[in-house]
């Protein structure tokens, strides 16, 4: 049922599914890791606005009349256009996605009236959380470039609508977009997609460099946050899934060694890298205690503990996997060996109280 192939060099994954709902997503390899800081965020906000054939107003009204749910999301890896609609409306939504990719107008007034307020709101809302600030800092010190870019546009740099248009030309290219269609018939989807003609340009892939042993401290009001972070390679995802499942993962809410000391772990997975995070937030003194205990816990995990968590790690992987970003590496006992010695560290909040990396 699941097939992956290239038509006109587009990567297309189609699956038929029972039911009346169809969904088509375009995953564009051009998230905040690409371009200048904030450009990808602004570009993601331009999607589904005016294009040469149809105004954003007309598209919104028409798609709502068909009941469609559309969204344009941003991650560090990608911009993801998602559409969900009733099965019979496939042609309309494929055409709309086509228009977004090839015909968006990028009018200057849309930038100032719609795109900037919305983008800046994302940034202000997120920045209210010290955990978000900490996660951003952790990416910065772990990767510097690419995945180290800020996730959101922060307003410090000004871009014109032309700048965003130019940026879109570099990422909306045939070898840089992937289509995922669920609940559609393969031939149908491909025939509708044959109208799409995106430029083919070679996207230069920058090798991901990561750094270890760095520390960042940010003074900020609100609940304190401290995190240990470790940049990892995709080949090591299995190992860290096992470690995370063993000590306590945010995706597996249950009583765990980490939850008992007021901390939790996560494995952020990107295309070319990942970030293993152990974090704690709350009252500064309490966070200090928790993160110190968490540090000693990570370094004292026994291999038998790891081995007994393989099944849980498989569940962890399944919970993180989705149709648009499938995870398919295998997790077994051979991966149940991981030692964390060096790491990066961030402290956000009351940094007079929060410990330094050396104190852990």
């Amino acid at each position, binding site marked *: *049922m699941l097939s992956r192939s290239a038509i006109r060099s587009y990567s297309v994954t189609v*699956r038929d*599914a*029972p*039911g*009346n*709902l169809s969904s088509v997503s375009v995953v564009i390899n051009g998230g905040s890791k690409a371009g200048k800081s904030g450009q990808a965020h602004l570009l993601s*906000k331009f999607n*589904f*606005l005016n294009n040469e054939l*149809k105004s*954003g*107003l*007309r598209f*919104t*009204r*028409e798609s*709502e*009349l*068909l*009941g*469609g*749910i559309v969204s*344009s999301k941003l991650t560090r890896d990608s911009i993801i256009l998602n559409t*969900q*609609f*009733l*099965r*019979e*409306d*496939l*042609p*309309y939504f494929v*055409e709309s996605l086509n228009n977004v990719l090839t015909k968006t107008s990028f009018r200057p007034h849309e930038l100032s*009236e*719609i*795109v900037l*307020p*919305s983008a800046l*709101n*994302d940034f202000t809302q997120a920045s209210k959380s010290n955990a978000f600030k900490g996660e951003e800092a952790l990416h910065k010190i772990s990767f510097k470039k690419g995945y180290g870019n800020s996730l959101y546009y922060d307003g410090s740099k000004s871009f014109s609508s032309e700048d965003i248009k130019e940026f879109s030309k570099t990422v909306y290219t045939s070898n840089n977009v992937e289509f995922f269609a*669920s609940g559609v018939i393969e031939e*149908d989807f491909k025939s509708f997609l044959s109208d799409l003609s995106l430029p083919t340009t070679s996207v230069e892939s920058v090798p991901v460099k990561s750094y270890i042993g760095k520390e960042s401290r940010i003074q900020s009001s609100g609940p304190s946050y401290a995190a240990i972070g470790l940049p990892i390679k995709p080949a090591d995802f299995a190992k860290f899934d096992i470690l995370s*499942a063993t000590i306590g993962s945010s995706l*597996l*809410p*249950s*009583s*765990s060694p980490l939850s008992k000391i007021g901390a939790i772990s996560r494995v952020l997975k990107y295309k070319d890298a990942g970030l293993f995070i152990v974090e704690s937030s709350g009252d500064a003194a309490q966070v200090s205690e928790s993160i110190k205990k968490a540090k000693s816990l990570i370094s004292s995990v026994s291999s038998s503990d790891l081995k007994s968590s*393989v*099944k*849980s790690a*498989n*569940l962890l992987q*399944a*919970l993180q*996997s989705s*149709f648009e970003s499938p995870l398919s590496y295998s997790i077994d006992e051979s991966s149940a060996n991981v030692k964390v010695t060096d790491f990066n560290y961030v402290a956000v909040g009351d940094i007079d109280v929060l410990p330094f990396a050396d104190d852990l």
Partner: protein
Amino acid sequence: MIRGIKNIKALSNKRFISTANTTTKYASLSNGVTIATESNPHAKVSSIGLFYGAGSRSEHAYSNGISALTTNILGSGLENGVLLTSENGKETNGIIAQTTNDNIIEASKIIAKIGSNASEIIKGSEFELFKKQLIGQGEQLESVPQKMILEHLSASAFQGYSLGLPTLGTSSSVKDLQVDDAERLLEKHLVGSNVVISASGNINHDELVETIESSLNIPQGHKPITKPASFLGSEVRMRDDTLPKAFVSIGVEGEGFTSPAYYVAKVAANVFGSFDSKATNATLTSSKLSSMVHEYHLVDKFQHFSTSYSDNGLWGFSCEVSNVQLLDDFIHWTLKEWNRLSVSITDAEIERAKQQTKVQLLAELNSTKSVVSDIGNKVLLSGYRNSITEALSKIDSIQTKDVKAWAKVALWDKDIVISSTGQTEALMDYSKWRNQMAMLRW
């Protein structure tokens, strides 16, 4: 089909196809327990849940929170790749096991074991620790104004009845709960005809039924009678000027799961839908209310809801407003729009709302966990669950006159309940809004 839109080609270029929806398979065990499964070949995670018909509605003020507490104790843990979580509601509670597809039999054995030994598990548990956690959960909910006003909306609407009790109990009621209370609850509610086991994922129905049948030991027994509840027009105002905004929710008595107007109420809520002033589609979205309130920035966010319980429900909106001095303008225009639902709503608005309701209905069932919960709740509360096809055709058959007729009975000149927190200084008094539920002329 759609007049007024010039570029009609793209819209009418539809493909008419019919597809079979996933079917739900049912089985009844000798002790009265219903098993319902839905196969989803694409799922990476399979889920199985044990739902029973007990919640805050079956409690009283002194035992408030016992259903949630008991279920949280039963539904927690992670062993061998099976994650146990719990789901707390006003009329049902559920224990859900999630696992990888190859592990589903193991998960169903665990669910059966929990169902069979519930009382022993409670006795051997860290009861006090879970009480502390539940109080924490309740405090967490109270600290999010958007959620808090909704809990108080139903508390005020159904005051004096158990349906008005908070789902998670209050800090004082939970503090005094004893293991005995949990045992009494289980004895009364965890009985055959009050239990549904639902599963979704890459599963085999027969194998699952066999496993459950052989390992689940739940006593036979009758479903306890649902306690009565009646809607009371009222207001609760929790002014807190330290919050940055005003948060308000207004509702009328809505439709229960078994009501023939269940989908009509859902469609009516979607006529006004939801709105986020910072979303890129804020100026573009269809509802007339959103175009009205956007230009003068009367509201940051609003959303309409149609919440259902077994025999009644709540229908209304909740909003957050940072332009607090203009709060009454927003509510004024919203209630004026509600009036229009009875008198001058257009076919185009209803048609759009119907399509949106259909897609939402399908899109909400986006994980095996949400499917399991949907099955469990609907079967327990209404005795059956519509097939999706049936639900879609019911929505299709709704006409503008049906919505108008519903609005005339449910909305027009009806009592309302108001719940608010934050900077509510500019929120007018109850009678002003009550009077706006009808117009003298139109």
